[in-house]
């Protein structure tokens, strides 16, 4: 049995999340965009994605910095699957062999 209060908390979170997902579309879907707004919209994806992973860049740990640099290099050369797999392996090895 799910507690009623827990249920309403989850429902509140889910409602907020869904509203964030549809708001951008509801605001813009029947508008003609001026070119400047269009340029800003173009920049959104990169800015959002890089802000989400920013914590990985906020480190002074040598192993993590090396792992991040190698992951950047991998991402620039390879497709998704090899990048993900090699990056995990390299990160694990670096953390194992370069302790704090």
């Amino acid at each position, binding site marked *: 049995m799910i507690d009623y*209060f827990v249920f309403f908390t989850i429902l509140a979170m889910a409602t*907020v999340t869904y509203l964030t997902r*549809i708001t951008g579309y509801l605001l813009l879907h029947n508008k003609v*965009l001026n070119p400047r707004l269009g340029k*800003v919209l173009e920049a959104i994806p*990169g800015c*959002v994605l890089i802000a989400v992973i920013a914590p990985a860049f906020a480190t002074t740990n040598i192993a993590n910095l090396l792992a991040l640099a190698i*992951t950047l290099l991998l991402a620039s050369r390879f497709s998704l699957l090899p990048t*993900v797999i090699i990056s995990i392996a390299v990160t694990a090895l670096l953390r194992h062999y370069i302790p704090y």
Partner: protein
Amino acid sequence: MSTHKEFIRGLVAAIPIMISFIPFSLVLGAQAIQRGMATGEISLMVAMNFAGGSEFVAVNLWTSPPHLLLLAFMTLLVNSRHILMGAALTPYLQGLPKKKVLLALFFMCDESWAMSFADAKKSTNQRFNYHYYIGASLGLYLTWVIFTTIGALVGPLIGDVTHYGFDMAFVAVFLVLLKGMWKGVVAAIPWLVSLIVAVVSYLILPGAWYVLCGAIAGLIVAFIMAHYD
């Protein structure tokens, strides 16, 4: 191409990301159990939200009974980037019926959104491919919900898997997605500003403000740069 083929194409393209979801969803489920949530509660939460960042925050702030307003506000903060993401996608959604779009947007996460965005830009008609998106989204959604539930069930047995390098999987995924959006050094200036501001915000502000601060700073720079084009 047929809708069936497009669905499969999206699903297959999402496989590497599905793999990267697994360790995180296991950890989320395990943490939820440690914080006193019931397995049914964590499953319901991820099935209704499908927004990993906000779910990790909620689990870490979870009390019994939970603080509804705090959790709703934190969820808004972490997921506010969806507003920007939806706005960026909207020009590619013209021509799709509103009902279909509103349903599809329920499943919009960073990864499915970036994949479909890149796919739309590559396509000859510059349009969002609905079935490609649904294929990718469904794979990601089911992976997330199923493995979070498994994490809740086997939680006490697994340690902190992030120690083995799995946390770098998300960074790797996002960097490959960013490469797909690369349009030269000048176009990347807002990204760099976004990164710097997000890192500084992360270091000096509590919680999840860094996503919003970084994204907004980058967009201000993009807005100023658009003026000089």
